[in-house]
């Protein structure tokens, strides 16, 4: 037995040695005039990965002197990875992150894109998206993809109930609630809504009623839960009480409820625009679905600008070359490719136009594109305790409210007081 152990140890050591020898260092380097840059991304839908690879391949072909290597980081632990990379000084040259609130803490490590990108590109960017990524006058990232929340509907069930399918750019909440009521019959609910994580979707849709959820800046910021903020949660709670929303679905994620939607047990579902790609590929054959117009509150049909971001590491060996790559990525056709794959909306004028062309005639895309107009910068991007509040105060509070355990007033108290407690 001892001999066997020794052999195993030697084998392991040998493996290790060869592995170490082959380990290639990451990061950028310059050799003989060619710069090698690393682009760390997190898109993980196969179509998005393919689109990313295509964009990088196009770049490498057109720019033989600047070679970009791809590294994929896990979407769920992106923050952990970036935090240690920046703190440890091994961050890649071009970095993709999934929201302004996640990339803003790293502002000190990032290059100012206002100084590195051509003004044409900068002016092309949607103002709300640009504002969400600007801090102290510095543009720390270029927004590349924006998601919105939309209502997906089962066309057949809608028609069967005698309801008229709304057309146009927007649909009011009253119309939406009426639809849910009309399509609720025996064994079929009007709506299944995966509200396991309600805070984001309520914030997005609340924008239509003018909800901001926070006032003030930095240390003085206070949480608010006034009339505007109450609209969406209260309307949803009343729909649940009246039986138009599947109560099981309320405790599930938006992906989990798709099975109920596909199975014809619910006529509609609310989900992020990114689900359009999944629905296209997963829905059973013959499933006739449509995307309803964007939900309009009393003020507007706007949603939040919390785009996926592309940044340049200020310590990169060739900052300008990295920024040039970002500029290339921001070209209309490239943004269109990646947004099509991810089911999102480009926050640039040229990107929107290119995507409109690319999706001409495709089911549901017209509504997706329309919902991405008139974005609003969220008030909570710069609040460091927001994630904390969201996970430990807001989400539990909303869940209790939707389950009918606390009243709207109690919810308000919990949200506001919880924020105050976290910030003392």
């Amino acid at each position, binding site marked *: 037995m001892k001999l066997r152990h020794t052999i195993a140890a030697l084998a392991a050591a040998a493996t*290790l040695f060869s592995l170490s020898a082959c380990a290639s260092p990451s990061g950028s380097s310059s050799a003989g005039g060619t710069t090698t840059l690393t682009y760390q991304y997190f898109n993980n839908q*196969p179509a998005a990965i393919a689109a990313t690879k295509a964009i990088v391949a196009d770049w490498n072909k057109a720019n033989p002197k600047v070679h970009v290597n791809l590294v994929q980081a*896990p979407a769920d632990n992106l923050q952990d*990875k970036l935090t*240690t*990379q920046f703190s440890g000084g091994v961050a890649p040259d071009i970095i993709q992150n999934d929201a302004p609130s996640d990339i803003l803490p790293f502002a000190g490590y990032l290059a100012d894109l206002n100084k590195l990108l051509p003004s044409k590109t900068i002016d092309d960017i949607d103002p709300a998206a640009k504002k969400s990524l600007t801090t102290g006058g510095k543009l720390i990232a270029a927004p590349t993809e924006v998601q919105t929340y939309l209502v997906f509907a089962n066309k057949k069930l809608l028609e069967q109930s005698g309801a008229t399918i709304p057309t146009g750019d927007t649909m009011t909440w009253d119309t939406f609630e009426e639809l849910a009521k009309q399509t609720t019959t025996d064994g079929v609910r009007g709506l299944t809504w995966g509200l396991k994580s309600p805070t984001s979707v309520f914030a997005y849709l609340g924008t239509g009623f003018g909800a901001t959820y926070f006032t003030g800046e930095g240390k003085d910021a206070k949480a608010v839960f006034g009339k505007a903020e109450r609209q969406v949660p209260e309307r949803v709670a009343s729909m649940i009480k009246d039986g138009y929303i599947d109560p099981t679905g309320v405790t599930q994620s938006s992906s989990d409820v798709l*099975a109920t939607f596909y199975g014809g047990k619910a006529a509609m579902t609310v989900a992020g625009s990114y689900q359009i790609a*999944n629905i296209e590929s997963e829905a059973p054959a013959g499933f006739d679905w449509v995307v309803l117009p964007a939900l309009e509150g009393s003020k507007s049909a706007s949603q939040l600008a919390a785009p996926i971001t592309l940044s340049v590491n200020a310590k990169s060996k060739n900052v300008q070359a990295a920024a040039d790559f970002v500029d290339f990525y921001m070209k209309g056709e490239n943004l269109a490719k990646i947004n099509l794959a991810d089911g999102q909306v480009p926050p640039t004028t040229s990107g929107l136009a290119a995507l409109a062309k690319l999706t001409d005639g495709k089911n549901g895309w017209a509504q997706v594109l329309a919902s991405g107009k008139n974005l609003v910068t969220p008030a909570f991007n710069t609040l460091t305790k927001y994630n904390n509040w969201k996970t430990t105060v807001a989400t539990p509070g909303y869940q209790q409210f939707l389950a009918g355990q606390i009243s709207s007033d109690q919810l308000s108290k919990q949200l506001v007081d919880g924020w105050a407690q976290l910030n003392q």
Partner: protein
Amino acid sequence: MRTRRIVIRTLQYLALAAFLLFLGFPFLWLISTAFKSSSELNSLAVNLIPSRPTLTNFTDAFEAQGLVRAAVNSIGVSLATTVIVVVISVPGAYVLARYRGRIRALGSGWILVSQIVPVALFILPLFFILRTIGLVDSPAGLVLVYVVYTLPFSLWMLQGFVAAIPVDVEEAGATDGATKLQVLARIVFPLLRPGLVATAIFTFVAAYNEFFFALVLLQSPDNFTLSVALSTFSHGEGLSRIGPLAAGALIASIPSIVVFAILQRRLTGGLLSGAVKG
């Protein structure tokens, strides 16, 4: 009397079956999920056997993530860690079990605190130390970290097993004029075999499934371990890549299963019989 034996036997088999069903079912479900198409996974159907089995999840998993390379990395790192840890732990566990006094108190204190304090708190100082030694982004660095971090519970587990060996057994061997080291090697070590096997399996699994250190310390895709490679099939709110994730996880479990199959055979006992003479 005989019927009583039969009844007890039957109950024992039933209990065993219940346990194995409980323990094995999720794995069965994993296998089932790996072969289901994404439309079946998103339907209301509940089937143990996929209605239309498909291999696309496996091709997706292999294609996308360099799984083979990651598997090699994981196995290499885990094996190296296990061997090193087990070898170092035996003397250390012996000390913890047999010697009273400050060493044991300090050692136990360090072990317990190290298990309680979460990685988040010391990952940065650790990262800096490793960067200074030049061992960031290398399998060797990962092995070093794994050894240091599995050592505590390996020591803790093993000292329990050492403590369970009666001192008389050692003293019997010592009276023949053998040195401490000889007693350790010839008498204690063989008696520890079941405990060593348990600790070895444990360390292997801990290193093999470990995610956070691997995520943070490894930068180049060539160095990724399986847990990092699998994590790119994120769960997330809207990203339903459960099929490829299940396929990848199934493939990733094969080395563990092989290790289990080999090592569990050594969990046969009765070694102590005859060691203590009347």
